[in-house]
């Protein structure tokens, strides 16, 4: 039963980011709303990676919004998992090497 929790959690993450996220609210988030209400929203600049093929949680060139958003979510989950599992396993090994 070793890592049933981790397996279930990863599947859930894929389902949430790849499927459910399509139904997320597209209203401005708290900071954006405050920036708009107070009046400093237009001081925002485009990110240097605004032209990235995944910018704004979509895949450039994919017309269908549900698929575009879902694919971006899956790519995000897989990449985050790769980096974070890699980092935490590496740190754990690093400890072992200590006297």
């Amino acid at each position, binding site marked *: 039963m070793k890592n049933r929790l981790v397996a279930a959690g990863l599947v859930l993450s894929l389902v949430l980011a790849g499927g459910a996220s399509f139904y997320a609210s597209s209203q*401005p988030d*708290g900071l954006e709303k*405050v920036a708009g209400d107070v009046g*400093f929203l237009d001081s925002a*600049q485009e990110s240097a990676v605004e032209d*990235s093929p995944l910018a704004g949680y979509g895949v450039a060139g994919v017309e269908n919004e549900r698929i575009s958003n879902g694919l971006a979510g899956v790519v995000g*989950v897989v990449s985050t998992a790769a980096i974070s599992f890699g980092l935490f396993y590496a740190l754990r090994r690093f400890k072992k090497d200590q006297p």
Partner: protein
Amino acid sequence: MHIPDGFIDIPTSAAFAALSAVGVAASLKGAARSLDEKTAPLAGLTATFIFAVQMLNFPVAAGTSGHLLGGALAAILVGPYVATLSLTVVLLMQALLFADGGLSAAGLNIFNMSLLGVWFGYGAFLLAKKILPKNKVSITAAAAFAGLISVPAAALGFTLQYALGATATFSITTVLTAMVGTHILIGIGEAIITGLSVSAVMASRPDLVFGYRGAKKNLEIRQG
């Protein structure tokens, strides 16, 4: 809550990037001490799950949405040092891959969410755990309280950054009240998601929950 480039000037952003770098470096050290065979996979899952749930904006009030920040959740599940690293990985992925949060603003965002959100959340959790009766239900309740506190804490971080280095000048008190007011509402959502997630892990693998294990560890007799 992800600050885009441009809101805060470059000197202030650079100063917070330096502060965040110190915090992340300390967390790398702390995390290396606490991670083992059993906790490393949960730590990876925590970061991944937070990335996924951060995509799920929920409506909070007219024309406003919020999403999980996850600092309190991560701190309770895997401890504050690993939590800081988890949130930092998530924020960097979002900024680099999805243009969510500016690149020059990365230090600001890491400071607010990976440091303030995590440590205020963890502090609130410890405080609530101390007051509540010693049982599993209290862990869930304390987790929800921690989630509630962590969001306005991160919002205060932004207000501080705005006070120090806003590129547009509006009254600090206006920004403060708007930020804290809105983020208390989002904090309620954070409390619900944090409570549900912690109770799910408590139901299946309570032995892995840092905030619960910590409580039992104090009672253990240490061997020389």
